[in-house]
């Protein structure tokens, strides 16, 4: 399964609560390759969000391994090439994984531009002029440059989510994680956010998306994962998943959502 150029290798990932009576993740194994647009679908409570949030350790897995940049990030310490024990640099790791949330999570006390430049300045050490120049270019790309000085509360849901996406991109991540990015949006705003995501995919960004947008999964995804009860039940190309579903749970799920 795990190939040499895969970016993230997930092996038997588990997240158990209460002595294992609740299994949010129950042995998920897969790998994310460079340039993949991986779409994770499944009924609610299937563990797909937990899976995504485990990838940048917003959830601490209770078992299994996630190899990212050659390091098992589920361990707090690891041995480096020279055999020295090093503490896992969790902040450094998260910089390389951009994350977009269902509820946008923009910082309400800062303008859009301040939202954009905070992490590049404080984490990457860019000076303000440089960070702002980059931020404006990104805002330009999503058509929001004229709102740079607005506060999040003055934006529509779709605009907020587009800002959230470019805010994550400002850190130049190696992979983008999307946690149901369109679920909290009014229907007429879903398109504008999906368009940004499609463009990202076209540019070759590695993406992992948890979503209920089956159209997006089919059109943009190159791999689709179906999860239920914390398990990865089926994985394949969009065509395999949507045209020739094998697992009865997947067929049942598709009959409800399509």
């Amino acid at each position, binding site marked *: 399964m795990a190939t040499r150029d895969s970016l993230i290798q997930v092996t038997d990932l588990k997240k158990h609560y209460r002595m294992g009576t609740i299994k949010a993740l129950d042995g998920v194994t897969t790998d994310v390759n460079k340039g993949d647009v991986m779409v994770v679908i499944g009924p609610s409570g299937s563990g797909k969000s937990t899976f995504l949030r485990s990838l940048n350790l917003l959830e601490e897995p209770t078992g299994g391994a996630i190899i990212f940049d050659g390091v098992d990030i589920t361990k707090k310490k690891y041995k480096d090439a020279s055999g020295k024990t090093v503490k896992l640099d969790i902040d450094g790791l998260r910089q390389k994984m*951009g*994350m977009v949330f269902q509820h946008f999570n923009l910082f309400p006390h800062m303008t859009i531009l301040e939202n954009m430049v905070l992490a590049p300045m404080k984490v990457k050490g860019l000076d303000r002029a440089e960070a702002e120049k980059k931020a404006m270019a990104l805002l330009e790309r999503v058509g929001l440059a004229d709102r740079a000085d607005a506060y999040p509360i003055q934006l529509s849901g779709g605009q907020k989510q587009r800002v959230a996406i470019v805010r994550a991109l400002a850190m130049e991540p190696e992979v983008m994680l999307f946690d149901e990015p369109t679920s909290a949006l009014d229907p007429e705003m879903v398109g504008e956010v999906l368009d940004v995501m499609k463009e990202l995919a076209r540019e070759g960004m590695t993406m992992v998306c948890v979503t209920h947008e089956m159209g997006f999964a089919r059109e943009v995804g190159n791999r689709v994962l179906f999860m239920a009860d914390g398990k990865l039940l089926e994985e394949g190309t969009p065509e395999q998943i949507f045209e020739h579903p094998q697992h009865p749970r997947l067929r049942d799920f598709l009959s409800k959502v399509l």
Partner: protein
Amino acid sequence: MDSFIQLSNFPKIAPYAKLFEQGMLVTVLLSLFTVMIGFVLALVLALMRLSNFRPLRFLGLDRDGHQREGGVLAVISRFNPLSFLATAYVEILRSTPVIVQIFIIYYGVFTLVELPSFQLFGFIKFDRFFPGVVALGMNSGAYLCEIMRSGIQSIDGGQTEAARSLGLSQVQNLRYIILPQALKNILPAIANEFVVIIKESAITYTIGVQDIMSAVNAVKGATFIIIEPLLVATAIYFCLCFPTSKLIAYFERRMSRGDKR
């Protein structure tokens, strides 16, 4: 029959007006310093309570280095000494009378620690004023800690998740994301604490701080008049507290209007 208040007594206490004036200044200064000490102490306590410092964490890891799912070791591994100390401090200070705390600080701590005896502004005895500020500040810190903790906890968890996933450290998240939002929310509560302290500080006359209440006592001792100086004190306290709390309410309304832009 003597009436409850005798107007003729007021001219008799008029020569002591300077005492009340100085007392008012002491009360205001005492309250300001108290809130400042309380604020800093409360911030430290609240961060201790909410910290994630677990020195025994390793006990909760299994052989592969993963978090144990349960059991005694998992419980012990979650022990946070910083949080425990801060919680103990807050609960003890909130469950004992202020006057006991003031006496312990003044007669206990500050008989061991010698304070220089000089006079601030020429009339405030530092060796009385300082213990008063310390005792009230420690007490106020315990109450403000709870205000601050709830202020920090009221910030949506998504804010921290977003900050951390951008690569900000825990400290940067607190400094740039959580505290600015939390402090704005609790500013009215802190200002209210200032009003509470103005009133509570009256108790410091028991250790000889020359506040408004001590002016009342001085007049009482010199003239044997009791009610009228008390009325003067009442008026001064009211004139300090009432406008302040109205002002706070005004700013509170204005700030919440800003949120709904």
